[in-house]
Each structure stands twice: as C-alpha cells, then as structure tokens.
C-alpha cells in the first residue's frame, strides 16, 4: 500500500546522485507507530499470567520489534546483502551461545541439587 507513496516521495524528494535509499518520512512514522503498538502489546501480555508462555511471548514480541527496527530504521531492506548476513550471523552466534549454555547448565542442575542435599545431610542426621 505504501509502495506507490514511497515511489512518489522518492521521485520528488531524492536529490540526483544521492548514495543509498531515502526513507519517506511517512514510512518512518508508521514504523514508530508499529513499535509503540507492539510495546503496548508486550506490556499487556505481561499483565496476564501465562506461566512459561510469558517469557516466550515477551521474547517473541521483542524479536518482531528488533526486526522492524533493523529492516526499516536501519535500512537493512535496502542495504547490501552482506551487511544483512553480518547481523544474521551475529544473531545466530548469540542464539547458539545462550541455547548451548542453558542446555548445559540445566543438564547438570540435578548434580548441584544432590550436592546441596548431601552437604545438608550430616548436619541433620
């Protein structure tokens, strides 16, 4: 819907010889409104007790917001693909590190609990 608008704006707004893509101000405002709505949604979800789903919902909405910021505010939609892969690669490493370390710490958690119990045992025979 905004494509025609964008083309219109670019045609009149962009100076000849400009490097890169000029974002129409209407697009920027729409992006901000989207982000504000998503903020309201994430605050709203947090007020309802959904158990573990609260964490999933909060991170999910945050990921959508981050994507909106990178694609439009950071121009990644119009940028060189290589820059996109730098960001995706970085995010993949972040997910890998958090996921792997969480998996690891959970795997050994029962050993920690056993150790704590054993240490308390002699004190209360």
């Amino acid at each position, binding site marked *: 819907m905004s494509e025609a608008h964008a083309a219109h704006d670019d045609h009149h*707004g*962009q*100076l000849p*010889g*400009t*490097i*890169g893509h*000029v*974002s129409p*101000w209407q697009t*920027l*405002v729409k*992006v*901000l409104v989207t*982000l*504000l709505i998503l*903020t309201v949604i*994430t*605050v709203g979800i*947090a007020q309802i007790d959904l158990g573990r789903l*609260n*964490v999933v919902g*909060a*991170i999910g*909405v*945050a990921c959508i*917001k*981050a994507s909106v*910021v*990178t694609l*439009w*505010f*950071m*121009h990644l939609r119009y*940028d*060189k693909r*290589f*820059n996109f892969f*730098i*960001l995706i*690669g*970085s*995010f993949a*490493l*972040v997910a890998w*590190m*958090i996921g792997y*370390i*969480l998996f690891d*710490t*959970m795997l050994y*958690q029962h050993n920690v609990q056993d150790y704590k119990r054993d240490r308390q045992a002699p004190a209360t025979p």
Partner: protein
Amino acid sequence: MSTGVAEHDTKHETLPARPPELAMHFDNMHQQFHSGKLGMWLFLGQELLFFCGLFTAYAVYRGNHQEMFHYAHYFLDTKMGAANTVVLLVSSLTAAWSVRCAMLEQRKGLLITLALTFLCAGAFMVVKYFEYAHKLHIGAVWGGGFHVQTADLPPELLAKYPEMTGEKLKDMGVGSFFAVYFCMTGLHGLHVLVGMGLYIWLFIRALKGHFNRRWYGAVDNVALYWHIVDIIWIFLFPLLYLIG
C-alpha cells in the same frame, strides 16, 4: 621537452575532479560510503556478541533461580521502564529522520533531529538516574551488598507475600539478580552516554555545514549505532521489567 609538458597538462585535465570530502585511500564516494558502513556493521555485530555474554548470564541465573527473579521483578518500576522504552523508540525515529535530512541536504531539519535525538537520550538517562538512585537508597544493590529493610520492600511484593522480609530475600540471593540488572542496564546506559557524545559531535559538524547527499556516512553510522542501543533495550525491558 615541450611536448612532454603538453602531455602532462592534458593528462591533468582529463582527471575527474576529486571531491574534497573523498579521503585519499578511496576511489570514489560510493566506495568510501560503503566501506564505512561495512565497518560499522562489523562493529555492531560484535556489539551484539558483547551484550550476549550478559544475556547468557541472565538466562542461566533465571533458568536456575526462577523464584529469585520473581521476587526481584517487584523492585523494578514498569512505568519507568515503559516510559524509557517510548523515549528510546521516539529517539530512534528522530535518528532515522536525521539520516533522511542529511541525504536530502535539509540542514535545519538535520540540526533539529540531531538535537531531538540527543534530548531523548538525555531524558532516558534522567529516568535511569531516578531508578538507580532509588535502588541505591533502599539498598537494592548487587551481590552480598543487598541489604533492603523489610519496611523498604515494594508494596506490591508485601501485598502478595506478607511474610516476606528483607533478610529472606538476601539469603535467597536476590543480590545476584541486581548484579545482573546493574551490569546489563549499566552497560546499556554507558552506550547511551556514548551515543549522546556522538550526537553532540554530529551536531557541531552539521553546524559547520558538513554532510551532503554523498557524504553523510557519519550521520548514518551513528544512527545505526543508536538503533542497536535501542534494540538492546527492546530486549532488556521485557526481560527485566515485565516477566516475573
């Protein structure tokens, strides 16, 4: 000899005019712009990994001590966190708009958007100051230093758990939550302060009449940095303030 001079002269005339903004080690303005941007993206990718260590610490603590995070989240003021989120989102708009103004060579618009971004960043730090001051005042600090009196506990926490005391929270290790909290928000706040410095620098350069449609890399790259600071907060806000 005279022919040699003539040749030299014609050679000189056919060379394309070199823009004064073009650094000597680049061929043209496009190459200069995209090299700078590539460097910025590599830095931003590294910034995410830098914060990743703290997010991992958060995930491990939270995974192993859910109750600690549940009690601790009552200490954080959702209203202040939400206000800061809105302030940062608005500053992201003005930052993106400043790039637009630089590209369109709208000097007045550029100065206004740069100033607004700086002011929003300042507002963020003011809210942060009030949050930190309150926590330090009641003793909600990191590690073993945590020493909140029962009377100073958040009313919502006492309403739900009337038997809760400051001692119990200390023994539970709520100080570890605040270690994570202060490290994450502190490092983020430090980035906001750096961003404020960068926006002063951009403002002065814009006043001097720098930047045009082919030479706005500094405005663009600082805006990219600013958006990453915004994205980090987009994750920090729900993780610290919202989910309990």
